[in-house]
């Protein structure tokens, strides 16, 4: 018995309850559901409860109720069957009630799986009336309502980026010539091409302190000139820069 009960794969999160666990054990042992070897199943069931406990997982009371039911059935199975059946008819199989419960649960489990396989609305099939965001290509992350951002949020985004870059790089003195005008032109060019971009996207790969500051200043300048607009979807959300005039 021991070698049968020791090597369980732990997949506890897949059990939807004690009945589910029992069904799993029955399937795993290739047992006929109508003729459950109660001793074996009870042992394995209790083994599982131990695992759940040892993992400090929340053990729902229902699992314990089922454990006691199993033990009760096991003990009843040990009692000798009376030789003369009582007048009320046949002695009922002590497992009958549990079998009935298991079968009922199993049928609904299957029905649930079947439901899940149907062509679901908004997953497999779609109707006409749903509104679509205008920016098709960006819509995945852009389907919330946009709200205008304040200067503080822009500064915060700026701060986030600055704190992200490696401190070591800050000591390097870079003599590369860069002017705000260049960056402004660069930003405007990319915005007309891409329609809208986040601050991070505008910086691209070249994240260094100077570049961040210049880009930030360029955006502020552009906002002042009313050439771009900055929006974000929610507080602390990603800030998107849009060209102010549709090109």
């Amino acid at each position: 018995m021991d070698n049968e009960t020791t090597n369980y794969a732990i997949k506890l999160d897949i059990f939807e309850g004690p009945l589910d666990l029992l069904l799993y054990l029955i399937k795993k042992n290739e047992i006929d559901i109508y003729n459950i070897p109660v001793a074996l199943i009870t042992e394995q069931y209790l083994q599982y409860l131990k695992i759940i406990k040892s993992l400090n997982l929340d053990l729902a009371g229902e699992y314990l109720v089922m454990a006691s039911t199993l033990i009760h059935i096991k003990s009843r199975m040990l009692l000798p069957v009376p030789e003369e059946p009582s007048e009320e008819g046949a002695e009922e199989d002590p497992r009958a009630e549990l079998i009935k419960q298991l079968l009922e649960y199993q049928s609904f489990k299957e029905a649930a799986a079947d439901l899940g396989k149907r062509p679901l609305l908004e997953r497999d099939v779609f109707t006409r009336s749903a509104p679509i965001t205008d920016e098709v290509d960006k819509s995945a992350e852009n389907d919330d309502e946009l709200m205008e951002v304040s200067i503080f949020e822009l500064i915060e985004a700026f701060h986030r980026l600055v704190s992200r870059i490696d401190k070591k790089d800050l000591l390097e003195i870079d003599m590369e010539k860069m002017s705000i005008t260049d960056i402004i032109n660069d930003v405007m060019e990319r915005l007309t091409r891409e329609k809208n971009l986040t601050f991070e996207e505008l910086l691209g790969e070249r994240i260094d302190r100077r570049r961040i500051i210049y880009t930030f200043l360029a955006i502020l300048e552009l906002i002042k000139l009313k050439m771009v607009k900055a929006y974000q979807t929610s507080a602390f959300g990603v800030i998107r820069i849009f060209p102010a005039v549709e090109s």
Partner: protein
Amino acid sequence: MENIKAIIEALILAAEAPLALDKICVVLDEAEKTEVKNALDRLITEYDERQSGICLQEVAGGFQFRTRSELSCWVKKLKGTKPASLSPAALETLAIVAYRQPIVKMEIESIRGVDVSAPLRGLLDKKLIRIVGRKDVPGKPIIYGTTKKFLEVFNLKDLSELPNLRELKELNEQQETIQEFYE
């Protein structure tokens, strides 16, 4: 009315929700129900035959144009929506409500063997089930049933279109044999 098929097509397209046969008949005031039904059937076959990207479907007691499920990946790309998925617990609970309604929470729990408060709440939020009333027993427990939205979401004409529960029939037969065995 010779262009009845075209009219019906227009009505269904313009309707926000699945359009019921009765409603179509009301709009086409002089039309016979059988005539409308025939036109609908012809429309459905036409859409099927020309392998259109949309199909006319009978759902939730009405008719509605829907995209074909094989094309879902494209439509999803366009809309960029993530499908709201149901957990196994929610799906099981929903199945039990769908097949056994009207049903109270305790009955669902006796089938699933676990507490179903959380999945029930989720299903109510998603408007897939609704409170039908209260049972006239001590404690007046809430009775649940499925909604029209459930039919729409799961692409069902009506509740009778739910497939039969396989095991239940088998179960009853088997119970008889168990009893025979013990007799």
